[in-house]
Each structure stands twice: as C-alpha cells, then as structure tokens.
C-alpha cells in the first residue's frame, strides 16, 4: 500500500473498527481496475483521434501527396523537412507569428492587468447598491469579447476598420484602409480585444486575493496610491502576471487562425501569414499534404516544446 493512503484509512476508522489489511489489499486491486476503467474511454478516444493522426502526420511528412495531380502517395525522403529551412514562406511566417505573439500578449497583459487593478478599486470602494450595479455592468461588458466567436468578431472588426464603410475612420476623420496599410497592427488589435478580458479576469482574482491588511498597513505608514501600487499590488501579482503572459504567448503562437483568416487572409503579400495559416493553405489551397505535414510537425515541435517547458517550470515552482 502506498504511503499517501495511510492517513485516510486511519481517518475512516473514527467510529467503526478500521478495516483490516486484507480488505485494503483486495480493494486496492479493485481500485486500480476502477481507475483504469474510468480513464480508459478518454484515453482511447484521444489515442484514436489525436495520437494516431499525429503519427500519421509524421508518415505524411516523409511522403509526397498532391491529390490535385495524383492520388498516389509516394516516398519523398526528408525533402519536405529540409524544405522547411529553405522555404521563405515558412521563415517569414515564423517572424510574423512571433511579432504578432509578442505584441498582442504584451498589450493583453498590460491593459488586462491595469483594468483588473482599476476594477478591483471600483469593486472595493464603491460599495453602495449603485456602485455594485456599476461594477457588475463593467464585468459583464468585459465578458462579451470572450463570448463572441472569433470569426464573428473578426468580420465585425474588418468592417469597422474599412476605409469607406468603417466607423473607425469616420471617428478619426481619416480614410485609411487599416487592414491593407497596417495589417499586422490590425490583427494584433483584434486579438487584444478578444483576449484582454481573459487576462483581466485572471488578474482580477489575483488582485482581489491580496490581504486588505497589507493596504491598511501601507495607509498607516502614509503611502500614497502610487507607492501602494508599486510596493504592494504589483509585487504581489507579478508571478501570476508572468505565468498568464507565458501561457497566453504559447496559445497565441500556436492557435492564431480564425482572426487572420476572416480579416486579411494572410495578406497583403505575406504580411500576416501566421504559421497555422501557412499550414492550412499549403494543405487545403495548394493541396500539398506532404509539405503541409512537415510544417505541421514544425508547429507541433514548437508548441509542445514551449508547453512542456512551461509545465516543468510551473511544477518546479509549486
């Protein structure tokens, strides 16, 4: 019997006589079977629909398969993989995806944290019925971008940023085709709109969990709001801020698709051709599944690499 179960066995024996070792033994085998039975359906499902396809992806990366010209799958050696290093589309997509990720996550973390601190202020200071109504209305408004499907939000922004049809240009008194002249900036703004609320609510929980006594002590010492912000609030939430930013970055880098597809489609030129979009276009526009598989492997190596690194870091800090 493993040691972590001992205290619990002892606890069970509070009123009734505790079960003897023989009972524990028999039930431990039953428990193991139950554990396997509970998890097996999920494991089989993920194994069949994710693990097998990803193994198949590795096979495809070593073959040529272009259904437009031939339905045959022919061995291609490592040519698809080596092409990754010479293909300018792939190289530029890595640069664009990285720029997009760094800029959008920076905005999300800074704006999201700032809004969280302000919202916590409003929630703690305006305590009347009206005040509570006000902070609830604000929280509900911040939930909306989170709930709006990415493709709908992207199309709304695309029209809003249009040179003739869009209200943004009317308000600014300009007629700039934002998605053509500043495509990367546009998709960064759209992603920041969608994901800032996520950071905001995670950080709000962090800010609200700071002990009120810390603020009271600071106030007694005569610390002003700026001093309090920099010596109490920010240091307390910095670790969560960094972790949230890191996880957002992995997600942004590997999952950006809908927003770009529905707005710029990757253009103009290669300006917003992020990596997931390159993979999709290679497979489903150019119908070159071998090359697409090699690119997908690259994306997997990057996302799993960063993801596992984060996971290990987080485990160690715990």
């Amino acid at each position: 019997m493993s040691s972590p179960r001992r205290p619990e066995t002892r606890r069970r024996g509070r009123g009734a006589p505790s079960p003897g070792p023989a009972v524990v033994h028999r039930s431990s085998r039953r428990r193991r079977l139950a554990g396997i039975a509970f998890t097996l359906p999920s494991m089989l499902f993920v194994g069949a629909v994710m693990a097998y396809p990803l193994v198949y992806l590795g096979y495809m990366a070593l073959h040529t398969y272009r259904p437009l010209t031939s339905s045959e799958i022919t061995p291609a050696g490592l040519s698809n993989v080596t092409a990754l290093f010479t293909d300018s589309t792939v190289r530029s997509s890595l640069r664009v995806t990285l720029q997009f990720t760094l800029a959008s996550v920076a905005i999300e973390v800074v704006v999201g944290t700032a809004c969280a601190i302000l919202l916590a202020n409003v929630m703690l200071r305006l305590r009347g019925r009206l005040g509570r109504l006000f902070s609830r209305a604000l929280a509900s408004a911040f939930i909306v971008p989170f709930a709006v499907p990415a493709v709908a939000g992207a199309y709304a922004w695309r029209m809003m940023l249009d040179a003739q049809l869009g209200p943004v240009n009317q308000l600014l008194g300009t007629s700039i085709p934002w998605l053509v002249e500043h495509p990367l900036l546009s998709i960064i703004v759209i992603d920041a709109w969608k994901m800032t609320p996520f950071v905001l609510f995670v950080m709000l929980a962090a800010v609200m969990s700071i002990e009120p006594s810390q603020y009271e002590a600071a106030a007694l010492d005569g610390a002003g709001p700026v001093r309090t912000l920099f010596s109490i609030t920010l240091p307390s939430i910095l670790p969560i801020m960094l972790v949230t930013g890191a996880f957002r970055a992995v997600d942004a880098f590997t999952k950006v698709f809908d927003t770009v597809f529905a707005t710029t489609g990757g253009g103009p030129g290669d300006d917003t051709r992020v990596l997931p979009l390159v993979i999709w276009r290679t497979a489903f526009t150019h119908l070159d599944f071998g090359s697409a598989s090699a690119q997908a492997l690259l994306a997997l190596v990057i996302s799993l690499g960063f993801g596992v690194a984060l996971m290990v870091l987080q485990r160690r800090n715990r």
Partner: protein
Amino acid sequence: MRLTFQARRRLGAAAAGAALTVVALVMLAPMAWMAFVSAKPETDIFSRAPLSMPDELTGAHYANLFDQFHFGSSITNSVAIAAATVAISVLLGGLAAYGFARYPWRGSGVALAFLIVARMVTPAALVVPLYTIMQRLGLLNSLSGVIVGVTVLNLPFVVWILKPFFEQVPKEVEEAAELDGLSPARVFFRIVLPLALPGLMTAVLYSFLAGWTDLLFPMTFITDSTVMPLTSSLLQMQTGYRIYWGELMAGGIVLTLPPVLLCFALQKYLLRGLRTGY
C-alpha cells in the same frame, strides 16, 4: 483629515470607473456594430456615412440569411455540433477526471501528462492528417467528423477543469457510500456528480463554447452548405466579387447572441474556468 482621505479615495474610484467605462465601450463596440449594420437598409450601409442613423430599420438581412444562406439548417447544425461536443466531452472527461482524482494507478501520471500535452496541440496541425483520415472513412461533409475533431481538442480541457472539483468532494462521503456496497460507478453517478455540479456547469459551458464557435474543422471538412454550421456559413458571405456586409453582420449576431447570453447567465461558472497553468 479622515473625511478628505475617504473623499479622495472615492474620487479615485470614480476616475477608475470612468476609465473602465471607456474600455468597456470598446469591448462592446464590435457586437453593437454588428447589430447596427444588420438592421440598416442596404443603401445606408454602402452610400452614407458609417455612423449616420438610418431613416428606417429593416429585418431584410435576417430574412436573407434564411432565404439565401441556408441559416435554418446552419442553426440546426451548430446546435447539433455544440450539443454533441458537450455530451461527449463532459461524459468522457468527467469519468477520466474522476479516475485521475480518486483512483490513481501506476500509469495514471503518464496518462494525465499525455492528456495535458494533447491540450497544447496546434489545431491546424491536427486538421491536416484528420482530413485525410475522415476522407477515407467517408466522414467529410458530415457533422460527426467535425464533432470528433472539436471534441478531441476540448476533452483534455474538460478533464483539467473537472479534476480539482472532484478532488474537493469530501472523501468521507464516497467512502461511506462504498461501505454501503455501492460500486465505484454508482458512487460516481449518484453521489459525486451532484456534489460536483458547479464544476460540471463550468465544463458544460466551455464545451458549448468550443463546439459552437469552432471554425477550423467545419470550414475544412464541410463543403456542402446545407451541412455547414453558422461559423463556416459566415465565410460563404464573402465571395470573390463582393462581401454581403448586411447579411454578414446579421449572421454574426445570430452566431454571437447564444454564447453571449449563456455566458451572462452562467457568469459565475465562466469565471471559475479561467485559470492558467497546466
């Protein structure tokens, strides 16, 4: 002295509220814009200033959704995809999360790590091999192909959301039920699930969002417009020649309203699911 301090604090909070109101308006802008454009007559959209009020409102764009863009079937398809995603991922994910939380076995650490790694997979990387597999199985242009793809990406997330909820259920309750002779499956369905209801609500909400909002799988697997869900139907309104902006914004509202209303109603559960980490 104390009064001025209080007054200053309240003034600060009012300033914070004003700043947040501006941000909140930006957050609401795209949805408000969709609603505004969707109700404008065609001439107002294309030949008057974007923010000018139309002389009259129209429901024509919403009617066109159903007449020209198969929105009747798209709504049904979206509901079916979302419902199946919820059912499969909450059932399988719930069982697995409970297994990991309560019945650890020798390989379960590895199995859990495997599921967590599955959360990080790039969807665009998965869709390439899955497409050829679905093609061979004859599951293209069917909802089941989409459901399977969306669910496999959502399932690990559900396990990760539910596991802490099951860990919080007091062990004594389960042990008492077990001593009464209930099998582990009975204990799970009769005793534990009702106690972990808040967690289940969170899992249901996020699974619904995953199924309802997914674009990648339907746009890749489905070319027949009567099988399309709302998300990939929207793409049909952008042709090589023009974009049907009025219909597109109306369709955006139809797509957006259910998840927004659901998130409002289940706000508490939504916020509970917002955690970072693996």
